[in-house]
């Protein structure tokens, strides 16, 4: 989609009518900070950045863009990891950072009404005086905004027990491409008509612009305990995950780290992780004291029976923080081991974790690139971090191919290419692996029902059939695993 100079000129004229000078950015220097999101390997400059502060302004801007057929890419805090907020060269960025008000905390119904630019953590902070919190906790929660969380259906460490964004949002208001303001969902446990709230959650800005969110709050658990189990063999750690779940207990979080991740995190954060272990599991349990003691004893026994070489329990605030510190610092810690790393996000059924980790190891050898695994094991949501050096010729491309192989492996195992980061720009080609032509057409029908001219975040999330056909000529999918020469076990 190319925007002519004429349209560009008319666009800026019209936007200047709506926004004060400070809130319409058009110079190269001003546009630069918006050239990418949290996935900085892709960059583009938009035509302009519009920073409205009222719903009416958003409606007017969208109507202008719709009439001129100019693409609109909505952006929250820009922390996304899949390039979902990557600008379109022919379009504008609609920045929602100024929508940062908390409107209403309703402790009786345990809800909070917020603007989309409110930060994830700010919601829990505002709810804290009432003994409440907002459960989804993506690792970027100090910076990421709730509007982006809804657009991406963000997850986090505690989704195993408390669900994703889609389970914790009751209503959103969107501005459609026609400029209409529509409420989806409500303050009740269900709403009449189609579940458009679920459809818009995770739709990556392709169906409408989120301008208000009603979130569900939960009472803070009275107490939590954290267990750390060390394993001599990574397969045992992986199999222990399914065993814990089948013991009838759903932990608040169940995280796994492999040896390279342990080593990185321990050097960086001194969390007290065992450096001789091939893998560790961190298991957080919550509830009241008596419940907790019971759960701790069941989980400890289960982990021991699953060949854990040691199980350590933390109950004091400091000890728990220390155990979590290593996990939370794992990404930056791995970042210090290598000039660059590439973070993947596939999900697989829990029972296949061991096998998939083994295959990733084989792929690592094949590509000659190291991998650290630190991930949400309870959900089967992998985050392999591929270490590479972008300054070395061809390493970025090698890392990308490696990443693509991992995602295709996840699909093959009955999983998905993205568990919580979204497809965005990054994984658009892997969508051709997970979905066939008929399924992609179905997605395009949905898109066209909301956005017939494809103006909202075009080119993201759902690939065109043409793109997949071209890729198909290069790759052979059809259920064939990449690199048949690699031994599989």
């Amino acid at each position: 989609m190319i925007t002519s100079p004429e349209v560009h000129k008319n666009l800026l004229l019209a936007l200047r009518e709506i926004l004060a000078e400070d809130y319409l950015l058009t110079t190269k220097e001003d546009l630069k900070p918006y050239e990418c999101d949290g996935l900085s390997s892709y960059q583009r400059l938009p035509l302009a950045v519009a920073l409205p502060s009222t719903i009416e302004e958003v409606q007017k801007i969208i109507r202008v863009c719709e009439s001129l057929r100019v693409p609109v890419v909505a952006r929250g805090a820009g922390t996304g990891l899949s390039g979902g907020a990557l600008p379109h060269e022919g379009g504008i960025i609609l920045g929602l950072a100024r929508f940062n008000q908390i409107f209403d905390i309703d402790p009786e119904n345990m809800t909070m009404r917020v603007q989309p630019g409110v930060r994830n953590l700010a919601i829990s902070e505002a709810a804290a005086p009432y003994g409440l919190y907002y459960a989804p906790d993506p690792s970027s929660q100090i910076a990421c905004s709730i509007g982006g969380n809804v657009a991406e259906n963000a997850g986090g460490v505690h989704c195993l027990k408390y669900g994703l964004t889609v389970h914790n949002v009751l209503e959103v208001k969107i501005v459609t491409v026609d400029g209409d303001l529509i409420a989806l969902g409500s303050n009740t446990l269900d709403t009449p008509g189609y579940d458009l709230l679920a459809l818009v959650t995770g739709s990556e800005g392709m169906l409408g612009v989120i301008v208000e969110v009603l979130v569900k709050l939960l009472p803070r658990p009275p107490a939590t305990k954290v267990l750390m189990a060390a394993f001599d063999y990574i397969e045992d750690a992986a199999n222990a995950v399914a065993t814990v779940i089948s013991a009838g207990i759903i932990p608040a979080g169940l995280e796994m780290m492999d040896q390279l991740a342990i080593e990185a995190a321990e050097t960086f954060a001194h969390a007290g992780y065992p450096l001789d272990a091939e893998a560790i599991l961190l298991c957080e349990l919550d509830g009241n004291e008596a419940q907790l003691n019971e759960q701790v004893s069941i989980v400890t026994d289960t982990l021991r029976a699953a060949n854990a070489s040691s199980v350590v329990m933390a109950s004091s605030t400091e000890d728990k923080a220390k155990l979590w510190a290593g996990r939370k610092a794992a990404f930056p810690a791995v970042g210090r081991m290598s000039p660059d790393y590439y973070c993947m996000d596939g999900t697989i059924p829990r029972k296949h974790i061991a096998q998939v980790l083994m295959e990733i190891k084989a792929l690592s050898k094949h590509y000659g690139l190291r991998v650290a695994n630190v991930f949400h094991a309870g959900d089967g949501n992998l985050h392999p971090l591929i270490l590479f050096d972008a300054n070395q010729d061809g390493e970025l491309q090698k890392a990308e191919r490696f990443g693509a192989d991992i995602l295709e492996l996840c699909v093959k195992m009955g999983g998905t290419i993205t568990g919580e980061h979204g497809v965005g720009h990054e994984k658009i080609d892997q969508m051709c692996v997970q979905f066939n032509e008929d399924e992609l057409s179905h997605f395009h029908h949905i898109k066209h029902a909301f956005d017939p001219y494809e103006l909202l975040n075009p080119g993201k999330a759902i690939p065109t059939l043409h793109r997949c056909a071209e890729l198909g000529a290069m790759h052979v999918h059809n259920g064939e695993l990449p690199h048949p020469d690699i031994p599989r076990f």
Partner: protein
Amino acid sequence: MALNIIPSTISDCDISAQLQQQVQSSIDLRSPLVIRGGGSKSFYGRASVETSNILEMKHHTGVMDYDPTELAITVRAGTRLKDLEALLDSKQQILAFEPPQFNANSTIGGVVAAGLSGPRRAYTGSIRDAILGVDIINGDGKIVHFGGQVMKNVAGYDMSRLMVRSMGTLGVILSVSLRVLPKPNKEITVVIDASQEESLGYYQQWRLQHLPITATVWYNDKLTVRLSGTEITLGIAMQSFESLPSTTVLNDADIFWQSIRNHHHPFFSEVTKPLWRLSLPSSTKVIARFEGDLLIEWGGGQRWVSSNVPANIVRGVVKRHGGYATLFTGHKLLPEVPPFPTLAPELFALHKSLKRKLDPQGIFNPGRLYRDL
């Protein structure tokens, strides 16, 4: 590694090719199709179109994948809810949303399409929270697959949840993957003497406490509460209840909860007036006292009223409290009243646009949810 399929008595019968053929010929002829599972909810929603073109789902049965450690099961849509739950029970697991089973023929496809959840809903989530994936025959006549067996999956639009409560108007559900939960070790049901006001007050207090409540019913000045968990958890929780006046433990509680869930309780089964289902913010206080009978579930979030009060008054009052009302049964007494409330015009326009794109020939259960959908 565990076997993917646990032996069960559910017959393994895949008739998707045959179903697809019937859909394709309906598309070709632009002939409306009525999708029918067990027919247990044929009373619910708007009436089906008059046609002999019925797509019978009840023979499309079988468990496609079930590994209890994954907390997920995939079954063909015609599988009876009764058989599915018996299988889960044999592995100490449950459908946490406790869907109603109005009769033994109820199928899982119908459960998804109607989107109704039972007593546990307010505490462990609804069917839309539990659905993980679907296979459908779409308006292009193709069999397409969305979602899967994993909880965290954000690739593509969420078609699985869109199928929930769409009343079959967006396609034919061939199979569904659902999240299941471990069955609670133990359950205790207590009955407390309480007026409606007192009950709503209790709900409010309990909401912030970590009590293992998994169902509540207030009816005829009795508040019935189900607690689920381990021996220790229940022991502690009971202390909160024993201090309340006139608390008694209900024996045969399963029969009581089944009667609420499946509407065999006299409140539902002996109803002679229109039955309204009110969905309200949980903290809503006592709303207008309509003449007629009242039963409150879900900690105040779902209230049933059987009453002859005119529809516009019921809907108006509920709307003022931020909720909505569905005419659940008694359509014959109020033939002019649409069962589901009218949607805002812009929202309805979006519904129509979606229906047109996903079902361009308008063949899937036309009019079952709303006129023109």
